[in-house]
C-alpha cells in the first residue's frame, strides 16, 4: 500500500540498512560512531564517504525504514483509543516520556520504557525537575524530531564573550558557515530566503505556502512593527524529490515515520548514503559501557559494549571514535570512563563535564481568533508552521534592548477549529451535527522558543545505582532562572501584541509550567572551549586531552541560541569528520 503512495508522487528508493551482531574482533575499524541519531548518522555518512571503515553502535533496537513505521497512515478508527493513548500502559511504563509534547498513541512506540531506562532527578518535591525524552532505536530521535531547521547566527557565537558570561565559543559563524552550506543540500530544507542578520538563510528548496490568515498576520507584522518579520517555517521536509527520497505528500504526522523519506532522518538519508560506500557496519542492541583509554598514548583504543539482549560484554577497536549518543548520553559515557589520569570522567580536566545543561524553554505564548477569512480553507496537512526570528537584544538595534539577555523566536501558525469544539459548545442532535460539518473559527497561535543560559548546577551526574545492564543510573537536575522567567513575559506579551495588531479577537496569553529538557533540545554537557580549563572539546569538537575522540552531538554546545539546534549538530559533525580524516590520513591518529 505504501508503495502505491510513492508511485503517485515520484519514486522513492531507499536502501534497507543491513545490520549485524558482529562480535568483538582483533581487527580494528578505522572509526567507531556511538549513536545513530541525527549527528551519528552524519558522522557515519562522512566517515564512510571519506573511505574509513566505520562501525556504528546503536544502543536500541533495529528499525527498518518503511516496514518499521507501524503507525504510518493509520486512520483514527484503527487507533484503539482514538488518539488518546494507552493511558494504563503509559502511566505504568512511560510515565516520563508521556509528558513529551510529541508523545501520542501513534508515536508512543518510539519513546523509551521509563522502568527499563531510569534516571534520578531533582529534589523530592520536584520529582520531574528534568524531563529526559529518549528514543532508543536505529535512527534515534531523528525519527521523531520536529524537523524545524535553522542556522545559528553570528551573534549567537559571540553572545557569551560579549556579555562576559559562561564560556567563550572558540569558533565564529565564519567557521561553520561553509559546513551549513555543505550539509543543507543533502538534508533538503524547504524555506524562504529572507536575509535576516539574526537568522541566516540556508540553501533552500521551494518554501511551503502560508494560509490566508498567516499571510494576513505576516503583512500586519511587517506594517506595524519595525524590526519584526514573519516567514514560513524552515523544515527538513522535501517540497521536491531529492536523491532517493520523494516529495512530501502532506499526510501530516511525520513522526510516525515516512516511508517516502520526505523528511530527513538517519534511516532515510544518512545511513543509506553511508551503506552505499561499502564501508559501513551497523550494530544495534549495543549499549556502550565505557571507552577504552590507553594511558600511554593518551588515546582511546575502542569501546566497551554490553549487548542489550544477551548482556554479553564486547569490545570494539578503532583509530578514531565519534560520540553521538545525545548530549546526556555522551556525557554519561565520558563519566563512566574513569582512569588514573581522569578520575572524574574522561576529558574532564575542567570539572565542567555534565554541567551547564541548556534547552529551549517554551510552553508559553499567545493565541487568538482571526475573523474575516470564513470562506477560506486548506487542502492537505502541512507539517510545518511559521517563524518569526528573534527581535530582542539585537546588538545592531539598541531599541531592541530588554530587561533580560538573549531572546526568542516564534513558531506557530493558523488553523480552523475542528470537530472537537462540539464538546465545548451547547447543542445536540441534528443541529450539532450540522454545525460541525463546517470548519470552525480560524485561530492563530504564537509559540515562542527562548534561549536558556548555561547554569553549571543544571547537570548530569552518576549515582551508585545501576540499571539492568550494569550501567550507572544518572541523576539529571535542572531548572530555568530569573532571566528565562523575565523572557517569558516578553514571549507572551509580544505574541499577544502582534495578534492584536492583526485584528485577532479573544487574544489570550498562556504560560504552562515548563521543565528543563521538555524542549527536547538538551545540550551543553561537554561544551566547546578554547582551553581544557574552560570546557571539554576543542574548536574541532575533539576532546581536549584525547586527540582521537570527537563529540559532535548537542553536548558540544557552548551557548544555545534560540533556534532549533539539529542543523548545527549536523554541520559541526561534517566539519569534525573532515578534521578527523585529515588527521588519520596524516598518521596523527593511530591505535
Amino acid at each position, binding site marked *: *500500500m505504501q508503495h502505491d*503512495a510513492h508511485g503517485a508522487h515520484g519514486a522513492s528508493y531507499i536502501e534497507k540498512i543491513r545490520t549485524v551482531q558482529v562480535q568483538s574482533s582483533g581487527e580494528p575499524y578505522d572509526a567507531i560512531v556511538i549513536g545513530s541519531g541525527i549527528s551519528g548518522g552524519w558522522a557515519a555518512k562522512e566517515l564512510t564517504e571519506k573511505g574509513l571503515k566505520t562501525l556504528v553502535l546503536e544502543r536500541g533496537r533495529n528499525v527498518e525504514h518503511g516496514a518499521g513505521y507501524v503507525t504510518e497512515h493509520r486512520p483514527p478508527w484503527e487507533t484503539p483509543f482514538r488518539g*488518546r493513548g494507552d493511558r494504563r500502559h503509559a502511566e505504568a511504563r512511560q510515565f516520563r516520556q508521556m509528558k513529551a509534547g510529541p508523545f501520542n498513541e501513534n508515536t508512543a512506540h518510539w519513546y523509551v520504557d521509563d522502568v527499563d531506562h531510569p534516571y534520578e532527578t531533582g529534589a523530592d518535591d520536584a520529582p520531574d525537575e528534568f524531563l529526559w525524552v529518549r528514543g532508543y532505536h536505529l535512527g534515534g530521535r531523528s525519527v521523531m524530531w520536529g524537523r524545524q531547521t535553522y542556522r545559528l547566527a553570528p551573534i549567537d557565537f559571540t553572545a557569551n564573550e560579549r556579555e562576559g558570561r559562561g564560556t567563550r565559543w572558540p569558533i565564529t559563524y565564519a567557521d561553520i558557515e561553509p559546513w551549513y552550506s555543505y550539509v543543507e543540500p543533502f538534508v533538503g530544507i524547504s524555506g524562504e530566503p529572507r536575509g535576516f542578520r539574526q537568522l541566516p538563510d540556508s540553501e533552500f528548496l521551494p518554501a511551503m505556502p502560508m494560509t490566508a490568515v498567516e499571510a494576513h498576520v505576516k503583512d500586519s507584522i511587517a506594517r506595524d512593527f519595525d524590526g519584526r518579520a514573519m516567514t514560513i517555517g524552515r523544515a527538513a521536509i522535501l517540497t521536491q524529490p531529492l536523491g532517493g527520497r520523494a516529495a512530501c505528500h502532506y499526510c501530516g504526522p511525520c513522526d510516525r515515520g515516512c516511508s517516502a523519506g520526505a523528511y530527513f532522518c538517519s534511516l532515510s538519508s544518512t545511513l543509506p548514503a553511508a551503506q552505499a560506500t561499502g564501508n559501513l557496519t551497523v550494530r544495534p542492541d549495543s549499549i556502550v559501557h565505557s571507552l577504552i583509554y590507553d594511558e600511554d598514548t593518551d588515546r582511546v583504543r575502542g569501546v566497551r559494549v554490553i549487548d542489550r539482549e544477551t548482556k554479553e560484554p564486547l569490545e570494539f577497536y578503532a583509530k578514531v571514535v565519534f560520540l553521538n549518543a545525545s548530549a546526556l548520553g555522551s556525557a554519561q559515557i565520558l563519566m563512566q570512563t574513569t582512569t588514573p589520569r581522569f578520575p572524574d570522567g574522561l576529558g574532564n580536566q575542567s570539572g565542567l563535564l555534565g554541567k551547564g545543561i541548556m534547552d529551549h524553554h517554551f510552553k508559553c505564548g499567545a493565541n487568538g481568533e482571526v475573523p474575516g477569512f470564513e470562506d477560506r480553507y486548506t487542502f492537505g496537512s502541512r507539517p510545518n508552521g511559521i517563524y518569526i526570528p528573534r527581535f530582542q537584544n539585537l546588538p545592531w538595534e539598541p531599541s531592541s534592548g530588554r530587561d533580560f539577555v538573549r531572546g526568542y523566536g516564534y513558531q506557530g501558525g493558523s488553523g480552523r477549529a475542528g470537530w472537537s*469544539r462540539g464538546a465545548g459548545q451547547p447543542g445536540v442532535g441534528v443541529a450539532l451535527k450540522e454545525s460541525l460539518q463546517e470548519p470552525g473559527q480560524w*485561530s492563530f497561535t504564537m509559540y515562542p522558543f527562548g534561549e536558556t543560559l548555561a547554569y553549571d548546577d543544571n547537570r548530569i551526574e552518576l549515582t551508585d545505582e545501576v540499571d539492568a545492564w550494569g550501567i550507572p543510573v544518572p541523576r539529571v537536575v535542572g531548572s530555568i532562572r530569573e532571566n528565562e522567567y523575565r523572557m517569558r513575559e516578553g514571549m507572551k506579551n509580544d505574541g499577544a501584541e502582534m495578534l492584536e495588531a492583526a485584528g485577532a479577537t479573544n487574544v489570550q496569553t498562556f504560560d504552562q509550567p515548563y521543565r528543563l529538557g521538555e524542549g527536547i533540545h538538551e545540550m551543553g554537557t561537554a561544551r566547546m572551549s578554547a582551553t581544557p580549563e574552560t570546557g571539554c572539546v576543542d574548536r574541532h569538537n575533539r576532546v581536549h586531552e584525547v586527540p582521537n575522540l570527537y563529540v559532535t552531538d548537542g553536548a558540544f554546545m557552548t551557548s544555545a541560541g534560540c533556534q532549533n539546534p539539529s542543523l548545527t549538530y549536523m554541520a559541526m559533525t561534517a566539519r569534525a569528520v573532515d578534521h578527523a580524516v585529515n588527521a588519520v590520513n596524516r598518521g596523527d591518529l593511530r591505535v
Partner: protein
Amino acid sequence: MHDALSNTISRRSALRRLSLALGGVATAPLASGLLGGCRTPAAGEAYAYQTLAEPQQRTLAALVDQILPATDTPGAADVGVPQFVDLMLTDWYAPDERDAFLAGLADVDGRAEGGSFAALDGEAQARLVAQMDAETYPPAPPEEPVDGDVAGAAQEGTYNAEEEREREVAGMQGELGEAMDDEAGDQRELQTGEGQAHAGASDDAPPFFRQLKELTVAGYYTSEAGATEELQWLAVPGRYDADVPLSEVGRAWA
C-alpha cells in the same frame, strides 16, 4: 485492535488507491460514491462489552444517538460509539472515574419517566437530552470552544491539521501526558482553552453529560463513517493547498 475494525482495511486501501488515481484530489465523499457497493461495516460489530451491562448499553446507545443522530449519514450508535465508550471505561478510565460515569448513566435513567431512558419515545429522549445539555452549558458566560489544545498546538512548528487533530482528541480530557501531572488541573484548563465556566473547578471531574458529549463527539468523528462520510478524511492528500475557497472543499476535514 478490534476484529471488526480490521474489516475496514480493504475498503480503506481501495479508497487510498482511488484518491491517488485521481491525483490525490478525490474527496472522501466523492470516493465513497465512486466505490458504490462498498458498505462501511458497522464498527464494533464484533465487540464484546466488558464493562456495560445490557441495560446500560441500551441507555448509552439511545443517549449518543440523541447527541449525534443518524441523518443522511450514520448516527453515533451505528458507528460504534457505545463500544468505544465501553473500551474507555474498561481500559482507560481510572476506577473512580468509571464509577462516576456509571453513576451518571444511572442518573439519566432515574430522570426518565418509567426509569429507562431507552424506553422513552424519541421526543421525550430529545427533551431530556436538551435539558441536560442546557444544564451543562449554561448560556452565560458563553463558554469558549474546546478548539483543540491551542496552547499545546505547535511543538516545533508542527502546526498542522493532522497533528492538531491528534492533540485535539488527546486534549479533550487533559492531554494524556498531563494526566499524571501535579498541575494537571491548571494545565488542562489552559491546554483545552476551556473557558471561565470551569475555571477553579478544573480539579474536579467534568460533569457527566460533558464527558458523555466529549466521548460521543470523539468516538463519532474518529470513526470511519464519521471521518469519511459525515466529514472528509484523506490518508494521502498528495499536495498542500494553503488557501482554497471553503466552497471548493465542502465539509470540514475530520
